[in-house]
Structure formats: structure tokens, C-alpha cells
């Protein structure tokens, strides 16, 4: 209970609430778009670099390799059951896009979890950043393969499909590219590199996260409004899924974490990765490789429901579960 309250009263989360409140109160508070983009680039750059430096000092062992492998499998498996459950309930393109969205991860949820750990004084491994990076792409590919397998028999046309475009979108999306690149640079330069830029990367991190979550609160609350306006029958399925899927996926993550006997911090991060849903890389990729899917379904689910659920309730809840299980 304490964990919940102390999580909810951390500055970044309170700024998320403030953003949501601004929309609810119809204030015109707004973070300019290029600034929001820059704050997100900063967070990806910083977390990637940090993770890389951490990897440089604690080199790979079997458990790390197993964790990375498990993360990729997780990202490929989640879309499978998500798609199977949804495919007869909503348009098949939407089902595939939602499957990809939930198989992939949200970097900001991850970043919020790492700062939760840092503030709580719990250590975590730099390889978890690599795990996050590895989980972005498989879900996109699996989601699209599922769509092709099930939709084409339904007679959809597909002349615009190109594997090279799919792989480029899945693996070379700007945000994935930056996080992987920063990870590798952090790993090459190690602690010597970190000492050069640590004030930029470490000292500013939480402050930037506050402003970024302020923006996220604004955007998420707008999407909630949009959802309310839409309000069809299919919507209630989507909302339910957006609440249930993260918990389900978290359980799977917890199972893997205890099977691999991960440390407290790493276990929490793996669960958070499993539970989180992409709202940058996957939606961007979907608009190009699966434009048939309606962004009005998968985007509000991940951005306006699953994301707040995870950062507000999820992180401390998963933490309590980890403590209770391990």
C-alpha cells in the first residue's frame, strides 16, 4: 500500500496527472510538438547510453543471454494469443495491429520503471535495456505475418506488401534505432564516456521525465475523450482488452522471471516490458505496413489506457508480486 502511495506521489507521475487534468479542465496547456519529440529522443538516448555503459562493466553471462532470448520469445508469443482471441471479434487488420502493439513495448513505461527502481534504491542490469530494444521488432513481424496468413484467405488484396519495407519499419524505426545506437555507443565508450556526459544524461533525467509525462498526460486524456466519442460496441471489447492484456502479459513475464530466477530489479523490468504496449514504434510501423488497421483502435488502447494503468498501478503492483513470489 505504501509502495502504491509513494509511487503515486513521485513528481513524474504527478505531472502525468496534471497533464490529464489540463485536458479535463479544458485548459490550453500544451507542450509544443517538436519539444515533446525532443524530450522523447533525450529519454531514449539517455536510457540507451546508460544501459550500454552498464553492459560494458558487467559483461554477458548465461543468465543475461537467457533473459534476452526470453524477452524476444515473449514479444513473439504475446501477439499470437492476443490475435487468436481477437480475430473473430473485430476486423482482422485491427486484431493484428493490436497483437503487435501488445507484443512490443513502451520505452517510457520502461524508463518510468527504471526511475522507480533508482528512487527505491533497487539495482537493475543494463542488459534490460537491450532486452527492451530486442522486444520492439519481433511483435511487429509476427503481427504482420498473422494478418497475411488469416486475412489473405479472406480475399484482401496485398500488392503493396514488401518484406524489405516491413523489416525496415520493424527494425529501423527511428526510436528503435536511437536506443540501440546509444546502447552500442555506451557499451563502446564505457564509464569513460559516461563521465563525459553524465550530468547531461543522469542529472537531468527525472526532470525531463516530468515534462515528458506532462505531455503524455495531455495526449492520453485527449485520446480518452476520443474513445468516449466513438463509443461503439466493439469499443467495450477494446477497453476491456486494454485493461486485461497488461495484467495477463505481466503474469507471463512473472513466470519467466521466476523460471530464470532473475533479481528483483530485472524481474520487475521484464514484467513491465511484457505488460507494456507500444505507442510509438508499432503504430508508426502499422501505418505503413498495415494501413488497413484503424489507428483509432490500437492507439487509444495502448496510449490512453494501458500506459497509465502500467505507470500508475502496474509498476507498484508488479513489484509487490515480485517481492511476494521470489
Amino acid at each position, binding site marked *: 500500500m505504501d509502495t502504491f502511495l509513494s509511487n503515486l506521489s513521485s513528481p513524474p507521475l504527478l505531472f502525468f496527472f496534471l497533464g490529464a487534468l489540463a485536458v479535463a479542465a479544458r485548459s490550453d496547456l500544451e507542450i509544443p510538438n517538436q519539444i515533446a519529440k525532443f524530450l522523447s529522443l533525450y529519454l531514449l538516448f539517455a536510457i540507451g547510453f546508460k544501459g550500454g555503459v552498464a553492459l560494458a562493466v558487467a559483461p554477458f553471462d548465461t543468465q543475461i543471454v537467457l533473459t534476452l532470448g526470453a524477452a524476444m520469445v515473449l514479444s513473439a508469443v504475446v501477439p499470437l494469443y492476443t490475435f487468436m482471441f481477437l480475430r473473430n471479434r473485430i476486423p482482422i487488420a485491427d486484431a493484428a495491429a493490436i497483437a503487435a502493439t501488445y507484443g512490443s513495448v513502451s520505452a517510457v513505461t520502461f524508463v518510468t520503471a527504471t526511475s522507480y527502481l533508482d528512487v527505491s534504491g533497487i539495482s537493475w542490469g543494463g542488459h534490460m535495456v537491450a532486452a527492451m530494444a530486442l522486444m520492439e521488432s519481433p511483435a511487429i513481424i509476427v503481427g504482420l505475418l498473422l494478418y497475411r496468413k488469416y486475412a489473405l484467405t479472406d480475399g484482401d488484396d496485398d500488392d503493396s506488401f514488401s518484406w524489405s519495407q516491413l523489416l525496415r519499419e520493424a527494425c529501423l524505426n527511428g526510436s528503435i534505432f536511437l536506443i540501440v545506437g546509444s546502447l552500442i555507443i555506451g557499451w563502446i565508450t564505457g564509464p569513460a564516456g559516461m563521465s563525459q556526459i553524465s550530468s547531461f544524461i543522469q542529472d537531468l533525467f527525472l526532470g525531463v521525465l516530468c515534462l515528458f509525462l506532462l505531455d503524455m498526460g495531455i*495526449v492520453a486524456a485527449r485520446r480518452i475523450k476520443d474513445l468516449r466519442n466513438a463509443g461503439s460496441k466493439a469499443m467495450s471489447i477494446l477497453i476491456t482488452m486494454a485493461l486485461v492484456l497488461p495484467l495477463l502479459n505481466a503474469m507471463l513475464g512473472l513466470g519467466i522471471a521466476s523460471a530464470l530466477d532473475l533479481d528483483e530489479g530485472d524481474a520487475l523490468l521484464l514484467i513491465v516490458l511484457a505488460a507494456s504496449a507500444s505507442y510509438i514504434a508499432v503504430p508508426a510501423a502499422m501505418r505503413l505496413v498495415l494501413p488497413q488497421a484503424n489507428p483509432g483502435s490500437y492507439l487509444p488502447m495502448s496510449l490512453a489506457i494501458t500506459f497509465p494503468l502500467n505507470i500508475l498501478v502496474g509498476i507498484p503492483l508488479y513489484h509487490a508480486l515480485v517481492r511476494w513470489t521470489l
Partner: protein
Amino acid sequence: MKQCTRIEIVVEQSVSGQVIDLLHKVGAPGYTLIPDIRGEGDRGTRRGDELAGDSSNCLFIIACDDDTIIESLKAGLRPLLSRSGGVCLLSAAEWLRH
């Protein structure tokens, strides 16, 4: 002054690259591109507030005086518009030649 057709295309930001490829393919003489703008239509409101650019549009303006190019541009745009939405308007204009 020369008669020409002014073509104006609004599509979502993420397909701007596909429109540019199409313009190159059909041999358009040039284009002007206003990126990262907003709009509302059948596919909902695009507020320009998302990081992936999913909620942004962009606007192309193309002056063209070659009817075959215009026809192939229209033909290439149709499937794109029906897949991803947007509008395309054509009107007559005079082009000031220097």
C-alpha cells in the same frame, strides 16, 4: 504566364514518403511540402500531438502543366487515398514564368 493545374494533396504524415516516390515516378516537375499539420475527416481528428507522427498530416502542392503526368498522378494516388485517407483537390491556375 502559362496555364497549369494546381494539385493539392493532404495525406497523413507517415505516407509522405510514398507520395514523394510517386511524384518522382510520374515525373512531376516539382512539389512544395508543408509537413506536420493537423486535420479532421472520416478517420477522426489528427491533432498533431503524437510522437510517431500518426496524428499528423502533410500537404503537397504541385503545379503541373502536363496532362499525362496529372493523369498518372491521379491514378497512383487513388489507391493510396483509399488505403490511408486524405483529400486531393485540383484547380486551374496561371503559372508565372520567370
